């Protein structure tokens, strides 16, 4: 049976496309870009630059893992950009207070994560229990958080952060701390999604909600926990973001949510839910950052950076969707 399916005459190109999953395609594209740019400028693969690219990817990748988990369950969170901005400011303000000796510094690391989970819980409750579409809930939440941040900071940046606060600038065994976070969280969430019942339930709910319910999975609890986990991951991402420079911006970078979702989607996480991996999300984010760096090294004018990113998202996603459609037709 299986052999007859495989032996169905299809174009060779299509067949190779079918065999490769998105993670392999990404890895291949990464290697190809690196090879080309290294030929133009050998310093591209220097230890310094590789470390920079990975460090710059870290906070985005952690947030993209969160986005991937939410998308796997068939939902979406577009409030992440604003949430990162808000939690980074919260953490920075707490660190300033801790520097004055009002309370211990670890509060500046713990409270933002809890605050993230709280916002995630509100999103999750509205989506799972009150049945408002996730895109509407998180669109509203985006406005609320963004407005709240502006109201709070009035556009002022946070400076003079204590040295002990800036853990993202540290290195362990010569490797920057954010990189450990990125790959550590990837391994933990990847293992959870693949090998545990609760992880498989996320795929089940995203793939076919009705079928998941019939097998006894509580769809509501899955959706709720997915948003809370996403909140915690966004909290961690915001800590890396807040501590990697000497100042914290008063507003989240514009379009951050789209960059994060793009990372997950380029990584092969299906926007329709039910398929994709967190490894893909991390690779997708690293690819985006590699392109940024590659364009600098290849001396392409910075102004074209975003257009290239757009083409890249379009090409990888189109290939992924065409492969899926072909599989559906077989």
């Amino acid at each position, binding site marked *: 049976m299986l052999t007859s399916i495989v032996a169905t005459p299809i174009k060779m190109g299509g067949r190779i496309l079918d065999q490769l999953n998105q993670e392999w395609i990404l890895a291949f594209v990464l290697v190809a870009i690196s090879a080309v740019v290294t030929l133009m400028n050998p310093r591209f693969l220097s230890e310094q630059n590789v470390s920079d690219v990975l460090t710059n990817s870290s906070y985005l990748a952690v947030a993209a893992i969160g986005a991937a988990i939410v998308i796997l369950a068939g939902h979406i969170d577009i409030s992440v950009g604003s949430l990162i901005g808000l939690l980074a400011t919260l953490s920075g303000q707490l660190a300033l207070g801790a520097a004055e000796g009002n309370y211990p510094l670890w509060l500046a690391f713990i409270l933002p994560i809890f605050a993230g989970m709280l916002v995630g819980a509100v999103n999750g409750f509205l989506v799972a229990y009150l049945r408002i579409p996730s895109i509407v809930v998180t*669109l509203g939440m985006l406005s609320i958080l963004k407005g709240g941040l502006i109201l709070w900071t009035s556009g002022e940046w946070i400076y003079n952060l204590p040295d002990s606060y800036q853990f993202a600038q540290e290195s362990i065994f010569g490797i920057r701390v954010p990189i450990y976070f990125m790959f550590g969280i990837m391994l933990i969430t990847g293992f959870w999604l693949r090998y545990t019942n609760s992880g498989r339930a996320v795929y089940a709910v995203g793939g076919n909600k009705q079928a998941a319910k019939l097998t006894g999975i509580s769809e509501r609890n899955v959706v709720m926990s997915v948003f809370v986990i996403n909140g915690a991951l966004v909290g961690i991402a915001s800590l890396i973001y807040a501590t990697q420079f000497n100042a914290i911006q008063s507003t989240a970078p514009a379009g951050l949510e789209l960059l994060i979702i793009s990372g997950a989607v380029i990584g092969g996480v299906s926007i329709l839910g039910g398929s994709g991996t967190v490894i893909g999300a991390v690779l997708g984010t690293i690819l985006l950052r590699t392109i940024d760096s590659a364009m600098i090294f290849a001396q392409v004018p910075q102004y074209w950076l975003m257009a290239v990113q757009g083409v890249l998202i379009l090409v990888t996603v189109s290939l992924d969707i065409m492969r899926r459609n072909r599989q559906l037709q077989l």
Partner: protein
Amino acid sequence: MTDTVNSNVTVEPYTNSLFSQLKRTLLRQEMLLVVFIIFFGLILANQNDRFLSSRNVERELVLLFEVALIAIPMTFIIITGGIDLSVGSIFGLSAVVLGFAWQDWGFSMWGAIAAALLAGTACGFFNGFFIVQFRIPPLIMTLATLALFRGIALGISQGRSARGFPDWYFEIGRGDLMGLPNQVWILGFMLFLFGIVLTFTPFGRSLYAIGNNEVASRFAGLPVRKNKLLIYMFSGFMCGLAAVVFVSRVSTTRSDMGVGMELDVIAAVVLGGTSIFGGSGTLSGTILGLLLIRVLTSGLLLSGFKGDATIIMIGTILIASILINDIIQRRLMKS
């Protein structure tokens, strides 16, 4: 997702008594919005004399124009179950094309306006073509082109701005006709025209059919692919038109124009009661949603709230109104 879809496809008990009809009309999202608008409008007018002055109202309508114009095709698209996240970028790209066609590429001003409209429509075609031909989900496609179109705008402008347009061109965005700003006339005409298209033409009704059940629509012989392609092109065209009027009002073009605009537009459409899953929605709802957002923003600004912080209120109202509407609909279905 399936049961949410079902609840949106209004499985109303089809009773035709006068009372239940009246009840259905009164409890629609549009009515809820009208109540909200009057309620907040009165509070704010009470607090501040200038709020309901004709000058303030006119100014507000002009400020609302670009988002309102783009909200028309966005309503169409969301009714079919799609979405267009790239509108802000198409708006920015059209503005840049307009500016540089005039300033650097030697176009006449009319030629530059035509180029901007064409650029917008071409962007819309690009979106629509990939969506119908390769079946890429609209959310993903327009997420990619959000970056792509903005990137092209950045690449063309190289961070420079274009200015120095001929005087007659500024009349479009700053002039008025019979005491009302041009924007009010253009918007009124477009709303009237496309309100009729959506409600009374086979094309308009087919959008609802596509949003409710695309496969069934195809089997029913509706030109699903053609109509979907058309509405994305329509969206691109309206972005171009909005850019032409906007540049005329502010007299310069920058590549970062319209950043984040997509969220304003989508918020207005969803606030107006158009289901994000497709299949239902009206233009009157969309325009009421926009008015409510403007009333709140303007009122908060007049009572001394800080500029961008007013979006807190928009987010809250967005979630609250969907929630209230949902509860009302559920009650209605039970009784």
